[in-house]
């Protein structure tokens, strides 16, 4: 009885799916022509704004989509048919009381075959895709250590991988069920267990010690850290900017308070900051005015709604009504107040710096005027380079896969990475036999819509002259404007200020969080 019930169940399912298939496949088979569709469209009255006459059904894309649908349903059908067949088969087996096949044996063989085929494909992957990876193909000095470390790990793990997988599948095959044999009662062996605790422990100790040495040399005990060429890399949604310190080899100070339309890095440029302050003050008074004139705004909106209604602009009506609702429930005012608070606080923070004479001098010490802002990063081959990372909005991650370099860019925190590029762009192009090949610095931390397209070109030049030519072609972003008072200050500042650090960051200077 059960069997028949199940059969009806499956049959109904098959039928439903089949009709679904026919329904979807109908337009593909052109049972419904373009003409009839147009006629139908005419019936519903083409011409009215809201109505879109069967646009979708006539397009070629729609046909494609229907074909895909047909494929999905067909796949579903196939699976149900398979389920049906095997279901029936197993019932037949039960009814006849005769085993069609010994499932245990089949599965044991399958495991063995899986091992063989699997190992073949794993090896195939290493042979075919292995060379496509960047292992033993690094373009930086520490990359060589990295690759050696990787290879050692690979050798150890590959041995374990092959040994354990082989044992797993071969044991499964060898000791498949047999009626004539009984399993061996063998519940523990302390010596054996101690043995296979100690061996992995030793291997891992070796790996850890080596890893420690490599990691230490790349990060906190990097010998090149002191004498490296410093470049600031600035991340924002969705792009990168680089800054070179210029002739004085010192970066000008920066703060997120100073970021404005004309000063996207927030550098401490006095003239920029002054104009920006005026802007902020104007913003502040604008917001106050807006907050005070909410009633006027509301009546304006109401008038607008009327106008839109006259013009039959339904979209406009809808949008304006939404805005009216926002005003009425206080959301509009809250937003304005929030913005007002932000601007006021920003001005306060800027004023704080001005009040503190020492800090002000350190910040506006003039070293920003020869800083160069570039849209690509150019470095010299075989010369240590220190990338200092900064983020404007959220966490990004600077990733240079060719150089084994990666470091997160965290707002409110300074991170850096020092390395020595050893292969110029020209060399890698020759090596890859690809004239178009470029190094890129990618973003590797999820950061929003255009995360997948956030990159900046990274160029390694061969000779010092090339590098110097390029640097000479770059112009300071905010050059000294007047030779008057400011120049004096510039001359005086190095003498007066006892600032040793090249970069003074206003907010939270050495915030290395743990």
């Amino acid at each position, binding site marked *: 009885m059960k069997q028949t019930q199940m059969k009806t169940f499956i049959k109904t399912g098959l039928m439903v799916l089949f009709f679904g298939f026919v329904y979807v496949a109908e337009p593909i088979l052109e049972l419904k022509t373009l003409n009839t569709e147009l006629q139908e469209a005419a019936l519903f009255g083409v011409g009215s704004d809201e109505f879109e006459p069967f646009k979708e059904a006539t397009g070629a894309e729609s046909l494609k989509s229907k074909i895909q649908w047909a494929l999905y349903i067909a796949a579903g059908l196939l*699976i149900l048919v398979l389920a049906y067949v095997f279901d029936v088969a197993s019932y037949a087996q039960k009814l006849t009381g005769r085993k069609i096949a010994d499932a245990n044996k089949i*599965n044991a063989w399958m495991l063995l075959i899986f091992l063989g085929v699997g190992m073949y494909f794993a090896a195939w*992957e290493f042979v075919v895709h292995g060379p496509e990876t*960047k292992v033993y193909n690094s373009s930086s000095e520490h990359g060589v250590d990295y690759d050696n470390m990787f290879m050692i790990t690979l050798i150890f793990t590959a041995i374990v991988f092959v040994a354990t997988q082989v*044992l*797993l599948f071969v044991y499964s095959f060898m000791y498949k069920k047999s009626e004539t044999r009984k399993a061996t009662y063998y*519940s523990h062996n302390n010596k054996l267990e101690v043995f296979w605790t100690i061996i992995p422990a030793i291997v891992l100790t070796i790996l*850890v010690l080596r890893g420690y040495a490599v990691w230490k040399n790349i990060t906190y005990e990097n010998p090149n850290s002191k004498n490296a060429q410093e470049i600031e890399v600035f991340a924002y949604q969705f792009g990168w900017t680089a800054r070179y310190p210029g002739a004085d080899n010192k970066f000008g100070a920066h703060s997120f308070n100073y970021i404005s339309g004309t000063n996207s890095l927030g550098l401490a440029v006095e003239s920029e900051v002054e104009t920006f302050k005026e802007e902020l003050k104007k913003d502040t008074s604008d917001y106050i005015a807006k907050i005070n004139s909410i009633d006027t705004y509301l009546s304006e909106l109401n008038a607008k709604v009327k106008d839109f209604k006259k013009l039959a602009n339904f979209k406009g009506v809808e949008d304006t009504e939404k805005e009216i609702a926002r005003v009425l429930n206080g959301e509009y005012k809250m937003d304005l107040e929030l913005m007002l608070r932000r601007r006021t606080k920003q001005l306060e923070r800027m004023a704080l710096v001005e009040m503190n004479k020492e800090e002000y001098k350190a910040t506006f010490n003039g070293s920003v005027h020869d800083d160069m802002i570039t849209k690509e990063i150019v470095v010299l081959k075989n010369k240590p380079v220190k990338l200092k990372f900064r983020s404007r909005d959220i966490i990004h991650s600077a990733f240079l896969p060719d150089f084994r370099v990666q470091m997160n860019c965290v707002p409110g925190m300074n991170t850096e990475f020092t390395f020595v590029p050893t292969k110029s762009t020209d060399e890698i192009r020759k090596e890859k036999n690809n004239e178009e090949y470029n190094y890129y610095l990618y973003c590797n931390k999820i950061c929003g819509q255009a995360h997948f397209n956030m990159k900046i070109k990274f160029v390694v030049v061969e000779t010092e002259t090339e590098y110097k030519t390029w640097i000479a072609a770059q112009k300071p972003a905010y050059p000294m404007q007047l030779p008057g008072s400011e120049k004096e200050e510039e001359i005086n500042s190095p003498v007066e200020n006892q600032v040793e650090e090249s970069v003074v960051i206003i907010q939270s200077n050495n915030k290395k969080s743990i």
Partner: protein
Amino acid sequence: MSTTSHLETETHGHDDHHGHEHHKETFISKYVFSMDHKMISRQFLITGIIMGCIGVFMSILFRLQLAWPSESFGIIETFLGKWGKDGILDPNFYLALVTIHGTIMVFYVLTAGLSGTFSNLLIPLQIGARDMASPFMNMLSYWFFFLSSIVLISSFFVETGPASAGWTVYPPLSALEKAMPGSGLGMTLWLVAIILFIVSSLLGGINYISTVLNMRTKGMSMDRMPLTIWSFFFTAVLGLLSFPVLLGAGLFLIFDRSFGTSFYLSDIYLNGIGALDNVGGSPVLYQHLFWFLGHPEVYIILMPALGITSEVIANNARKPIFGYTAMVISLLGISFLSFIVWGHHMFITGMNPFLGTVFMFVTLIIAVPSAVKTFNYLATLWKGNIRFTPAMLFAIGLVSLFITGGLTGIYLGNAALDIQLHDTYFVVAHFHLVMGSASIFGMFAGIYHWYPKMFGKMMNNTLGYFHFWLTFISAYVVFFPMHFMGLAGVPRRYYEFTLVPEFGIWMDVNVVITIAAIVGGLAQVFFLYNFFVNIFKGEKATQNPWQSNSLEWTTPVEHIHGNWPGPLPVVYRGPYEYSVPGRELDYYPQNIPSDGEDDIHHTETVKVDEPTIETPTTEVDSSKVLFASFAKLFGLNRA
């Protein structure tokens, strides 16, 4: 065997007028707000399976985009509407899919669906208890989970879309509404869902711990507990200690989002808004808090699967599990170490690099207990008499995937190697194999093995075999090539690679992966059919279909409240006494006295003339039991 048939005929009598057996129970109290642990476990399982289907389906949608970037797929528009205009997935919604796929699979399927199901089902049954220490809290635990699932799914119907900052939801991205659309209401719903989930898992966890500590039947000393119970116990302890930290992290994030605090925010300028007034916070703080849960969470997911595997492998190899004590100690070691390794997720996040060294040391130590477990599984198979039920195949699959995925952990745990591999497809491959696939395989092993206990019916083996082989092969085809992509520096969470010419060579691989993923997804239809149809149409289960030793197979096939109709069984030996020399049967149930004859006639359980339904004493004592368990934990005497 005669008793078994006796029992069958007995329960058959009740088959048609099932409802009369407990005439007090209404539909609501029996199937909806049930306090019976067996029903709650079924509820967890079915909710988990539904969430799993949603999660897997999402992964297929975004795999389509990865394999055939910017090509039109009708299915995408049908399911995603405005986010799949003209059948092309929106880049923002791609991130949303990735995020919710991760959240669903990690929390809803592999934490609640796996540990929730089997802890609930097996803890009372395998230790010989009538029910959980607090059945009411147990019920609450499920309903908080259910509510949480509803809230999470509802975020799909929000105008700005669900959370899309990755399943780890790092602020500031997740904290700033203007940073991406998904960080609006969708993110709030995500946080609410997770907080509800934490409540659920804490309620469950407290219950599991107190039940295991206090309600073991006579003779069930700790060293006679099946390894499943050990793994559920450690899992619950991990959850209890780490989930509150996530709760804290989540609350701070809510504060930052809604109340203007600056726990995680500092020095931020946003396009279109200007400088924010948050100063002094640190985004890295969130990462510390998150991964303090996040790493134990990996073991919360994996350990129940390992426990199930231990049971299934020993049972089907007809051999005692090799090195029971070593298995328990390695579980303990993994549990302890998992609390001090979280920093290995953060080597290059700006954390002090010296700290990275410390975390690298402890991380690689954790490989030792994992290796011991693997070797013990191999030793258990050695000279066994292996029966390949679908459950056994999945258990073997788990060991294979655990090896493959676990070994790549040695690369990622190494701070130096992590520089290049961090956030690439190598990581994706690693955790999908060792945490994702392996745990899912453990879950399947458990379902195939305990289905007769859960539903009193058998599953179809042939369908199970097809399900296993298709899933196993596709799991490897999907995730193995990803290692090589990661080594080539292909970043994860990229919407498409067409804008990066360097990655063009991986486009073919992406197509292969997607096809394998679709095959793997469709293979689950075998399982779903097998699972849901056999609940109603399946062949009736026998008393002890796998000839197993543990106590759950001594309860009647038809579920009754209180589990055992007579007095509770008494335990005389450990759970893995298979193929004991000098014994005719190759198994030796825990509840049979040693001096008795070698049959199961002895058990009181089979004398079911008129099952006297005892009101479970646990309900009365629940608070006492709970208190006692804490007293025990802190070394106090029972008052």
